[in-house]
């Protein structure tokens, strides 16, 4: 289990048993989970939208019949295999589900009287990677600072960081930049909605586009990415350590535009942050989602924070003459 006390994850709760709501809610509250309940008619529509989930809790009597519940689970597995599903059964043998059917759709099962499999489920599939608190805190600080430097007219706030297994892309525009160090190898991705970012940017007094708007917005997102990447390197990556011995392994990234899907070739859950840019004058706001995908290597034991003081952060922008 992660020791990141601030980390949360969203789980879809496909369970209509009113009598167990409080128990499941209490479990979620105690384990950093945000439970989302939806009507059975909306399951697939919800899964096709961006809900950045960590996993799914499903009851065997969620649909009208057990058979229909299994059909729905199979459909979810087919459309979103990256999302692990755990099944709540009334008792260990309350219904006759063949073992292979169970294994095909669900990673495990539990009963309301024994939540230990549920705890193991979130440890194994959601909070399976330990992210140092200094890393989480530092990413938030440098990202807010970088965003604020480019969106001076807006107020930038950070939501609580969370874990996702989802591979659905948010919005229409995203940036990717590799992260390479002796303790991590992977990517940082920033995602946002083009039209909303555009509305926010043009609301800035005096802004004139010198290129077509989408190119300007691409460049702006690129510069924010560059600023965060640079600050991340300065704070967390010691370039002098072990550069020569770093792995050169790579895996293909697969992006499906039609389905807004991206795969980094790893089954690991991903560390995510959400930032909000709010224009106080107009009330317009824009969300920027930031994913850290350490798909090639993550060795938190080697993690170290190089630059830790607030003074150091404030010093960015100062001239150092030689």
């Amino acid at each position, binding site marked *: 289990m992660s020791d990141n006390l601030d980390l949360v994850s969203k789980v879809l709760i496909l369970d209509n048993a009113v009598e167990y709501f409080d128990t499941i809610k209490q479990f979620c509250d105690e384990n950093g989970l945000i439970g989302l309940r939806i009507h059975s008619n909306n399951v697939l529509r919800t899964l096709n939208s961006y809900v950045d989930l960590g996993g799914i809790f499903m009851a065997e009597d969620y649909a009208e019949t057990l058979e229909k519940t299994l059909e729905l689970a199979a459909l979810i597995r087919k459309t979103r295999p990256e999302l692990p599903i755990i099944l709540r059964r009334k008792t260990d043998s309350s219904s006759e589900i063949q073992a292979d059917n169970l294994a095909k759709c669900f990673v495990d099962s539990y009963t309301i009287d024994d939540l230990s499999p549920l705890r193991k489920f979130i440890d194994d599939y959601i909070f399976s990677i330990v992210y140092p608190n200094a890393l989480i805190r530092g990413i938030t600080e440098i990202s807010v600072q970088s965003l604020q430097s480019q969106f001076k007219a807006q107020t930038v706030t950070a939501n609580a960081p969370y874990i996702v297994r989802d591979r659905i892309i948010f919005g229409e525009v995203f940036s990717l930049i590799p992260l390479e160090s002796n303790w991590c190898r992977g990517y940082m991705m920033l995602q946002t909605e083009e039209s909303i970012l555009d509305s926010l940017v043009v609301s800035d007094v005096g802004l004139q586009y010198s290129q077509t708007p989408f190119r300007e917005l691409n460049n702006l997102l690129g510069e924010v990415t560059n600023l965060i990447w640079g600050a991340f390197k300065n704070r967390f990556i010691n370039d002098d350590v072990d550069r020569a011995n770093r792995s050169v392994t790579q895996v293909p990234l697969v992006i499906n535009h039609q389905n807004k899907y991206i795969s980094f070739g790893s089954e690991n859950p991903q560390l995510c942050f959400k930032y909000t840019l709010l224009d106080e004058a107009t009330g317009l706001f824009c969300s920027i989602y930031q994913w850290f995908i350490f798909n090639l290597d993550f060795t938190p034991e080697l993690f170290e924070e190089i630059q830790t003081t607030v003074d150091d952060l404030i010093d960015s922008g100062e001239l*150092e003459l030689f």
Partner: protein
Amino acid sequence: MAKILIVDDSSTVRDQVGEFLTENGLDYISAIDGKDGLVKLQGDPGIKLILSDVNMPNMDGLTMVEKIRNELGNSTVNIIMLTTESNPSMKERGKAAGVKGWIVKPFRGESVLTAIKKLIE
């Protein structure tokens, strides 16, 4: 009037810095990477100061500085790096190549004005 060369692959940064220089009555031209920076410098003897990024495609900023000093033999143009990099070994490389100053992004106008005042005015 002394002219400033902005070298950065980000058009956002080129626009931000250029707008700031114009607002302060300064003349500038831009280059999109180190290679383009070398071409622009050779084509304009009025350039007295270069504000350059480090991480750029085609040719990075420090390689450009080394070429300006060693291959072009230009030891007079003042060069300030405006970059996200703050790694001491990279600063040392810049210093050894003849960089006069270092500013860690995000861009802050007063630092650029200070550099201009100290180095070319």
